[in-house]
């Protein structure tokens, strides 16, 4: 599991830098009592599981602005959830491709919500990492189960 956590760190850094024009500054303390937007991506196949990403509203806005190449106040309505969903989707694909390159997976569309229930689901994942980025703090959680139905 330690190895998977290291892989997740490395992939998160790479994904944020190359496609989201963000930089990971280092580990962070998870923010508490702050409303957060969470994107959850589940997958099945060679392994089943879930990857989730969570950030507060300001972080989600800054990430969307970076991704779209616009100022924070120019982010079109609804794009923060879409961009967070894409981040979760790209992270999930990259982690699975690295962890199990010979595997077969179905990655399902991201579920995005600002409810506490989604944060609770993220907290139940096997591995959780908090990253301080140039856009704010992001929490990434991952669960990979040993067996899953073949995709």
């Amino acid at each position, binding site marked *: 599991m330690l190895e998977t956590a290291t892989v997740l760190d490395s992939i998160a850094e*790479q*994904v944020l*830098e*190359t*496609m989201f024009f963000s930089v990971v500054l280092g580990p962070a303390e998870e923010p508490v009592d702050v409303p957060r937007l969470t994107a959850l991506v589940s997958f099945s196949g060679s392994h089943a599981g879930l990857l989730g990403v969570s950030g507060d509203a300001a972080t989600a806005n800054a990430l*969307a602005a970076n*991704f*779209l*190449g616009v100022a924070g106040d120019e982010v079109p309505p609804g*794009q923060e959830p*879409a*961009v967070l*969903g*894409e981040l979760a*989707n*790209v992270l*999930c*694909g*990259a982690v*699975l*491709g*690295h962890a*199990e*390159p*010979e*595997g*077969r*997976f179905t*990655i399902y*569309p991201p579920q995005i919500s600002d409810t506490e229930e989604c944060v609770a689901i993220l907290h139940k994942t096997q591995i959780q990492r908090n990253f301080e980025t140039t856009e704010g703090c992001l929490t990434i959680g991952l669960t990979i189960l040993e067996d899953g139905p073949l995709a």
Partner: protein
Amino acid sequence: MAFSVLIVDDCSAMRSVIRRILAISGFEMGECHFAGDGAEALDVLRRHRVDLVLSDVNMPRMDGEGLLRRLAEDRELRAVPVVIVTSDGTRDRETRLLGMGARGYITKPFHPEKLRAELERVLEASHA
């Protein structure tokens, strides 16, 4: 020579960022068209001259595999090269899509230089 490109992805933000990365990479891009799924892509391809298609795989209505199948059946469009741009990095998926006619396969995340090199390779092979 500038190449006209069609970017196919159900996420409008991803379409925008791929166009942005193409511009950053220095790829000689002419007109850039967008489509939200395979069906829309076919419609764009029938109305515009497109040199290269960059397509996602998982999309509603008609996915990337459906688009490749339809293009293979179409005499006028089958020569248009398609490069798959996806987050699925498994070899099984890559082999399957290349077997269905995709000329290139690039997994997210990618550096601008890597995207440009792959597109230039595909265009060169298509015009050989």
